């Protein structure tokens, strides 16, 4: 009897101890970005090699089974592909001509290069989030290959996601269909900005939502392309996100919202390209990467400056999710999350609604609790925000 009591006591102490460890870890990871460092080493040593191993075996098996297809099929395919190649070569030549002209015109206007000329690094998807609630995946390139947090990830020609965590030989990417992801978008033809949100309840129907698009006279029709906007803090400009499938005017008559079909098939993602320039590099806020989000983050936060007071009430309950994400993001500018509901108050100016308007206050590296940080920042950000807002239109 005594022994049973002893063991159950030990168990209770162990439970209490481990619970404290978990709470401490959570606390640390919210307020100190580097808390996960030693654990990433652990993952690097144990799980990542195994996942890469499984992936290699799986690809080998898939390759072998594909090789067993008939020769006739391959020949037919070869023919049709050859015809397609010829077609594409002709098209390509035409486009090259136009491209040269475009470059010259751009030179005249001194615009920067578009994203098609950014350096990209190929990577393979080696594992996906083990749960069903979030949509993140791991790629097999890491900081050794030059991957940093906040790099955009594309597949084919469409946006897939953004890098959120980096280890030596791996990186975690959050896809844009993840429930907590918000991307600053823009209708390509009319340049109206909007916020593109991932939504867990919609993605099985193959849709995403976009919101906060100004209700002006510009017609936005079904089939229009939505690309990343130039005022996004995290995403490079002009990357295709998807095509509009529905537009409606909101009940407030000031904004429009609707659904769009993403251009990437997220169920079949195997290889992706990581663009090795982050938006922060281009806009010169790269210095903000490792610093606590004080004044150095001013250009990144000026969108949040206006948004912080109104959204603070809406976001205080969401703090757990919101507070959760920034620390793992070394860039100091937080990932977008839950900003959708915060966006209305600040969208009139067309300021980016996507970017962590909800999360930016909590990422204040000084460790102030999330809500307090949100309350304190708007008065601080007033002056730098105006300066940064002035700079933005001049930047390409």
């Amino acid at each position, binding site marked *: 009897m005594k022994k049973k009591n002893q063991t159950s006591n030990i168990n209770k102490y162990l439970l209490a101890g481990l619970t404290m460890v978990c709470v401490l*870890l959570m606390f640390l990871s919210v307020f100190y970005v580097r*808390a996960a460092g030693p*654990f990433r080493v652990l993952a690097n040593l144990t799980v990542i090699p195994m996942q890469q191993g499984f992936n290699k075996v799986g690809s080998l098996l898939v390759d072998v089974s594909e090789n067993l297809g008939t020769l006739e099929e391959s020949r037919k395919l070869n023919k049709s592909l050859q015809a397609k190649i010829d077609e594409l070569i002709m098209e390509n030549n035409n486009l090259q001509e136009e491209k040269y002209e475009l470059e010259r015109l751009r030179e005249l206007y001194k615009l920067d290069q578009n994203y098609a000329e950014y350096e990209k690094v190929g990577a393979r998807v080696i*594992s996906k989030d083990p*749960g069903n609630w*979030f949509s993140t995946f791991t790629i097999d390139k890491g900081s050794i290959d030059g991957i940093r947090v906040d790099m955009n990830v594309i597949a084919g020609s469409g946006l897939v996601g953004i890098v959120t965590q980096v280890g030596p030989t791996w990186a975690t990417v959050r896809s844009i269909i993840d429930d907590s992801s918000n991307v600053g978008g823009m209708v390509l033809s009319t340049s109206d900005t909007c916020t593109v949100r991932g939504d867990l309840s919609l993605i099985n129907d193959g849709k995403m939502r976009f919101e906060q698009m100004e209700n002006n006279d510009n017609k936005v029709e079904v089939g229009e392309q939505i690309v990343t906007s130039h005022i996004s803090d995290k995403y490079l400009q002009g990357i295709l996100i998807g095509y509009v499938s529905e537009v409606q005017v909101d009940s407030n008559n000031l904004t429009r919202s609707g659904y769009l079909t993403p251009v990437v098939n997220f169920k079949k993602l195997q290889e992706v390209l990581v663009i090795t320039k982050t938006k922060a590099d281009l806009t010169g806020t790269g210095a903000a990467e490792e610093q606590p989000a004080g004044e150095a983050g001013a250009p990144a936060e000026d969108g949040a400056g206006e948004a912080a007071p109104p959204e603070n009430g809406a976001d205080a309950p969401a*703090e757990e999710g919101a507070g959760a994400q920034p620390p793992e993001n070394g860039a100091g500018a937080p990932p977008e999350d839950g900003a959708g509901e915060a966006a209305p108050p600040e969208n009139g100016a067309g300021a980016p609604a996507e970017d962590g308007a909800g999360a930016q206050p909590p990422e204040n590296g000084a460790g102030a609790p999330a809500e307090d940080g949100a309350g304190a920042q708007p008065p601080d950000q007033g002056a730098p925000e105006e300066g940064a807002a002035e700079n933005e239109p001049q930047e390409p």
Partner: protein
Amino acid sequence: MKLKIKRVIVTALAVCICYALQCTLFPSLALASVKPNLMLILTASFGFMRGPKDGMLVGFFSGLLTDIQFGNILGFYALIYLLAGYVNGLFEQLYYDEDIKLPLALVGATEFIYGLVVYLLMFMLRSEFDFLHYLRHIIIPELIYTIVVTLGLYPLILFINRRLEAEEKRSAGKFV
């Protein structure tokens, strides 16, 4: 003591392999975009087969592995799996090897509560109130799929556990 180490190594290996399988193989076995939760099956099984302490530790490390790569806050999944392991461990007294009903019921209940907790903390607190939708499309399908996989995975875990215990008994017998 020597066999304890063997038990620890086998358990750790099981956890790592299950986690790697969960992340690599099972996304392609997803039905209606829902994957079963192998880590939870493992945690619950070790819990009610070996008691609260083992369940806790298996749960803690499973959750930690998930957290390192995919979690938002480090420690979130660790805490959930830890508690799941402990509570399942409390059922050790009621557990009989031959019967599969109790393990199924426990895994089912654990899975359901896990879904509720993740929804509550990660979604409801961000004011996504469409609970019925998440219930129908994520929690219940995951529950069903996990129970089906348990029917297959549990005998395997049982077999491994029995082998380990048999070896320990044999070694203990040698002292006599």
